[in-house]
């Protein structure tokens, strides 16, 4: 069999990868301490490895994986920017990493100060009045935000149950609405992904709880009618929810709070440089305007000018969203990032992110269909429409990029654009990196016309080829079995 052996195939009875000291307390037999029926009948069959073999196993696995540090990762809507190394180091300082969450606030003043200050920074960056750091992912933030909105309407004696979501939205938006017990009303976007004002006017009503929106939109374009949109939703008594996935485009330029949004979530693992971790841990803080503050999750961190406290006594709160205070270790990294960049730096981040996306677009539109005439924001969309004529699809182009050592852009999203290829370079990529990528993209466009089989059968140079995903789903093998 090709490929790398699993940890179970490498296991050999009698090996161990870490020595434990022998117990130094007087012991009794397990049966005298615990009822026999509660004791484990068959030990868990965990793998047995020596330390060198274990380290080689995981090192081999890491070599079969691609991260931002491996190369260019222009995955649209995911903001795969560089993860600064000092942030990794500071998050591991013992005062943070070894701090018990149930320490009394007196023993955790540094941590509480950091969380409290971070709330202030994010409120300033988004133009909101207060922030909770509890949600640990974007979707978790969405759920928190929608719960805040429900609680707000409920406190006013209104039972509003519908969330309006454009058809270009991230999948988490409607899914979060469902988990919040709300009904999703999908409205058709204009061809450029912007909100269709007429469709919005028809959709709003006395049952509208909120409109969920990201601006710039998922197509990377700024929603220029945002003030009218806010007006329409607010006039109907609904609130405006900002999906912060695309915040990297506008820091220091324009703020969701000033656009009329009432609730905002951010993704610290996108905009604020914390690692994606291969899918997590993330952090999805939520910001709100004044009128939603009473509903924020508990505990709320307070400051009397001298000491920081945890306030549990919040009768209107939606309650707790996380076992403790959110992904503190991730927040430490993002805090260090904001302190490193400052206001000027964050604005430069957005300017360079937008510059990079537009540069890619300008250099690629000769070779690929570019559906939108406008300048994009931090990400741009091209499509495989021209290549489709030769039987080459967006998926094939993505897979061919793997052969050239690039992580492909997001494909087939947003769903409203046929054969979409969504490129988000981020600001941490140099002109040389972008030029190299552009060159390869042109090459692939040429290959599509002259040697389509090469593209259709890609990748050729990766450790494995295209996977049989249908087989995986039809007969799921989701664990090791002897």
């Amino acid at each position, binding site marked *: 069999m090709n*490929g790398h052996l*699993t940890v*179970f195939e490498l296991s050999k009875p009698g090996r*161990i990868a870490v020595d*434990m000291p022998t117990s130094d*307390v007087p012991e009794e037999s397990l049966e005298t301490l*615990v009822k026999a029926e509660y004791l*484990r*009948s068959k030990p868990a*069959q965990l793998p047995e490895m020596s330390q060198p073999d274990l*380290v080689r196993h*995981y090192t081999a*696995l*890491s*070599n079969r*994986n*691609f*991260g931002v540090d491996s190369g260019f990762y222009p995955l649209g809507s995911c903001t795969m920017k560089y*993860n600064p190394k000092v942030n990794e180091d500071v998050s591991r300082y013992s*005062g943070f*990493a*070894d*701090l*018990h*969450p149930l*320490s009394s606030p007196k*023993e955790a003043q540094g*941590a509480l100060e950091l969380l409290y200050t971070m709330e202030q*920074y994010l409120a*300033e*960056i988004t133009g909101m009045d207060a922030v909770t750091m509890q949600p*640990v992912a974007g*979707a*978790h933030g969405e759920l928190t935000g929608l719960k805040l909105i429900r609680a707000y309407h409920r406190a006013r004696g209104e039972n509003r149950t519908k969330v309006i979501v454009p058809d270009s939205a991230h*999948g988490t938006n409607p*899914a979060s609405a469902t988990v919040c017990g709300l009904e999703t009303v999908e409205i058709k976007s204009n061809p450029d992904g912007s909100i269709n004002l007429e469709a919005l006017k028809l959709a709003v009503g006395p049952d509208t709880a909120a409109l969920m929106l990201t601006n710039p939109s998922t197509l990377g374009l700024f929603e220029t009618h*945002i003030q009218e949109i806010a007006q329409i939703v607010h006039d109907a008594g609904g609130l405006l929810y900002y999906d912060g996935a695309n915040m990297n485009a506008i820091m220091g330029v*324009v703020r969701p709070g000033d656009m009329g949004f009432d609730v905002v979530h951010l993704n610290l693992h996108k905009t604020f440089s914390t690692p994606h971790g*291969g899918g*997590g841990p993330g952090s999805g803080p939520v910001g709100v305007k004044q009128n939603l503050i009473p509903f924020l999750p508990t505990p709320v961190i307070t400051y009397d000018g001298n000491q920081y406290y945890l306030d549990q006594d919040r009768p209107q709160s939606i309650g707790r969203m*996380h076992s*403790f205070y959110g992904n*503190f270790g991730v927040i430490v990294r993002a805090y260090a990032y904001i*302190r*490193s*960049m*400052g206001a000027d730096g964050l*604005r*430069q981040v957005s300017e*360079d992110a937008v510059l990079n996306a*537009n*540069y890619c677009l*300008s250099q690629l539109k000769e070779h690929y269909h570019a559906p939108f005439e406008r*300048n994009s924001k931090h990400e741009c969309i091209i499509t495989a429409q021209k290549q489709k004529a030769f039987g080459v699809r967006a998926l094939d182009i993505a897979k061919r990029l793997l052969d050239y050592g690039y992580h492909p852009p997001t494909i087939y999203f947003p769903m409203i654009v046929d054969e979409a290829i969504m490129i988000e370079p981020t600001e941490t990529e140099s002109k040389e990196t972008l030029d190299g990528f552009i060159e390869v993209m042109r090459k692939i466009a040429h290959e599509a016309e002259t040697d389509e089989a090469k593209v259709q059968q890609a990748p050729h140079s*990766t*450790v*494995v080829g295209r996977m049989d995903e249908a087989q995986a789903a039809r007969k799921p*093998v*989701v*664990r090791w079995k002897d």
Partner: protein
Amino acid sequence: MAWSYLPHTREDRELMCKAIGIRSTEELFSDIPVSLRLASPLKLPPSLSEPEVARHLSELASANKSVRELVCFRGGGAYDHYIPSVASHILSRSEFYSAYTQYQPEISQGYLQALWEYQSMISELTGMEVANASMYDGGTALAEAAMMACAAGKKDKILVGGTLHPHYREVLVTYARDQAMSIIDVPPLDGIIDLDRLGWLIDETTAAIIVQSPNFLGNIENLKEIGRIAHAKGAFLIASVDPISLGVLEAPGVLGADIVVGEGQSLGLGLNFGGPYLGFFATTEKFMRKMPGRIVGQTTDNRGNRGFVLTLQAREQHIRRNKATSNICSNEALCALAAAIYMSALGKTGFREVSRQCLQKAHYTYSSLTALTGCEAAFTSGFFKEFSIKLQKSVTKVNEGLLEKGILGGIDLGGYYPELEHHMLICVTEKRTKEEIDQLAREMEALI
């Protein structure tokens, strides 16, 4: 000014603007209505250099009292276990931590395989057939389990053991509130679920019973009997467990649990002031397609190689949108990787030994403390690595005294349950030495 994370020089920016056909980057923002644009810079402190950032964060960190400085006898869902050195070294490999979700399997085989191995080990440990690739934490994993049980059973009533971690209960209530889910508490008797009361409260409309074992008070619940009571009424048993306990305690799957969840922080993750932690989620094959979160499956590639992919994605939000089984997208993959490293580093014998030492040391501590005048056992039920004691003094006062001696004392249970005023929940992991335990007993004697 130059920022080390931003590569562009002034010349680069000029060349790029020229290539786009604009004079300056300002033009790229011209579609934003002027009235909305910020007139002045954000009010944030000025940027710091790398050494300054390190110094500032170091100051903040040192304003906390960590378990590196204190001898920790505090638990309550966050535990001071030893983390093998291999864990931090492997987790520092940025091919892992700087990657996104494994949507391109050809260049994500390493992570996919590691997560598949994690799923295998969690399944094995819990005695369940399948596990997902992680949830946010113990509390949210439990809330998702309740939602899944309601959806699978098409019922909406959840019975919750009164010995559940109070924070998990709060998270559950927050999640349940906007769902058509009703939460009914089953009061405890002698620190465990009152099985008689449970028998009276359950009926055919009950979707599931939620029970934590060892529970928040430290006591081991009778999962087998609770499972029997649940199944007799067509309800599911959801068990929230401490994974370390499963080195010596019976796997909940063997005892009849339908869903097993819990907090995986014990499996090689730091305390981190409460996060990032790891929710684990395991269930039976029957419910695999109703599970929330990402799942890695084994398959083959077009060259005949074994390989791994994210599978059963038709359950998930990016495909099913408002019909998805959950809204979860980002999870805690890196924490799952840490847990996989932890479990494979300790292996079959080491894992059991850690578990055994927790049990032995906790019982030694229990004997030492309950021998003191002014300190008695709160309950008679069996326990694992945490137990409750009753003092005649304020727990806060005792903890203040202990802190002066460099000891992080137990949790004040009166803060959660008014009827347990003067009760302390003590946690003893394998890291505590006899000397530390004896010191705790000496200081306690002086304080109570």
